[in-house]
């Protein structure tokens, strides 16, 4: 058994809670999130040879977790258990977003702070991933670029777009 392999298993065990949370933030259901984590481990350990440099262990494994999460979402299609809730939520938020974007401050300030979280979770997938990895997983933009497999300027673009949409959820505007 190679060193990289052992390091990888150690890394997975140590950080399992983070992987679970990230998976859960996509699939929003306990059993589905556990499945994501399990599938990610199986794929990672079966394909560990494609991890050529241990420096990339973190981003490499996160990439698998994100891909697996999105796979589950894609497979579940419109049948995700909380889909209805999200849809309802989204239509309201969409209005608020529009207000925020086109300047309708009254609506914006009535937002409760904890709703920022829901707002993040309702962002389009590519913006959501970048924001979660940056703010919750505290990755650098470069790391995010490796995880998502797009170049740095695209990461910045998505982060910018995502944050713009979230502007309305903050009490104080952003300079």
């Amino acid at each position, binding site marked *: 058994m190679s060193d990289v392999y052992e390091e990888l298993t150690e890394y997975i065990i140590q950080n399992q809670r983070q992987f679970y949370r990230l998976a859960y933030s996509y699939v929003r259901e306990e059993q589905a999130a556990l499945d994501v984590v399990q599938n990610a481990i199986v794929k990672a350990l079966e394909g560990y040879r494609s991890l050529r440099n241990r420096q990339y262990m973190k981003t490499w494994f996160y990439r698998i977790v994100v891909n697996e999460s999105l796979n589950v979402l894609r497979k579940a299609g419109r049948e995700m258990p909380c889909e209805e809730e999200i849809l309802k939520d989204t239509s309201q938020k969409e209005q608020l977003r529009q207000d925020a974007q086109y300047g309708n401050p009254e609506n914006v300030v009535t937002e409760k702070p904890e709703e920022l*979280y829901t707002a993040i979770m309702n962002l389009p997938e590519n913006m959501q991933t970048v924001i979660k990895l940056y703010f919750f997983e505290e990755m650098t933009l470069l790391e995010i670029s490796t995880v998502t497999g797009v170049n740095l300027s695209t990461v910045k673009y998505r*982060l*910018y777009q995502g944050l713009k949409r979230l502007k309305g959820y903050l009490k104080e505007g952003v300079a």
Partner: protein
Amino acid sequence: MKEQLTPQEEEELDSMMRLEQEPEFCEALKQYEQIPIPDELDDLVRNTIRNQMERKKKTMKKTEHKRSIKIAVRTLGALAAALVLFCIPLNTNESFAKQMQSVPVLGKLAQVLTIRSYSYTENDTNVNVTMPEIAAKDSADSDAAGVALQSAATDFTDEINTQISNIVEDYEADAKARFEEYKESFFATGGTEEEWAGRTCDINVDYEVTYQEGSVLSLVLTTEESWVAVYGERYYYNLDVESGKYITLQDLLGDDWVQICNESIDTQIKERLAEDTEEQLLYWGYGRDEDEYDWKFTTVTEDTSFYINAAGNPVVCFPKYEIAPGYMGIQEFEIVK
């Protein structure tokens, strides 16, 4: 659409990236961190890793076996040019009570003798082994040339038989060790004798002759443990006993064998996926797995396993995990000549 920021937007982004200090963001992060972690997560993670490691060990072993078989072919290929007769010394193991058994002559020239067939029970483990040894039918030819050829032929068949015998012995020992380990951890984690009662492990080794025509022989040796379904392992032997050579895919399909196999396998994978309306099947890098990981099926090699079926066609076999996830099992593809 180009996903690119203008310089002003870049600046704006810089200030936005400091949002994590805002109370709303702290609140959101707190909510994220409060996603409850189910109790079974740790067990699931550790068990999944343990299972994967066991499988990995198996695969590595298998590769070693394949390599040594190939060396045997190279050394003996030249020697064994025109052999006719063989004589195999019986190979017995005194440590276990065994029933000796022999199987009727199968063909005109080659014959497979089951010379070791034994079963015994030890520490909740039931071992059943039916192990083939390969020989050719004795001929009346006993002049000096005949004897010389016979000795070279014995080397060839000895190699194969030793190979088989080593695989079986190693496997038996490993399987027993694995079961012991399992038993140990069962009690170490608070399992009681009552709960254990009745748990046994069957270790089975068997073989199947898939093709037998003239001196050409194809057989598959299988090993399995009853308590874990994942350990099914196969070893393939395709032999021309008369010429003393291993039969290759090239022998069966001609010089274009690589291309023929690759095209056929690629087509068959696509056909299987096309018929699979419920998305039960998954091949790395195909269909819904496309573009995702860089280890899809690309080509057969000299190390690719196969056996010959009753129709005389090679059936290419990929072990679990090689071109598809483990649940797909061993993947077989008949290559029609």
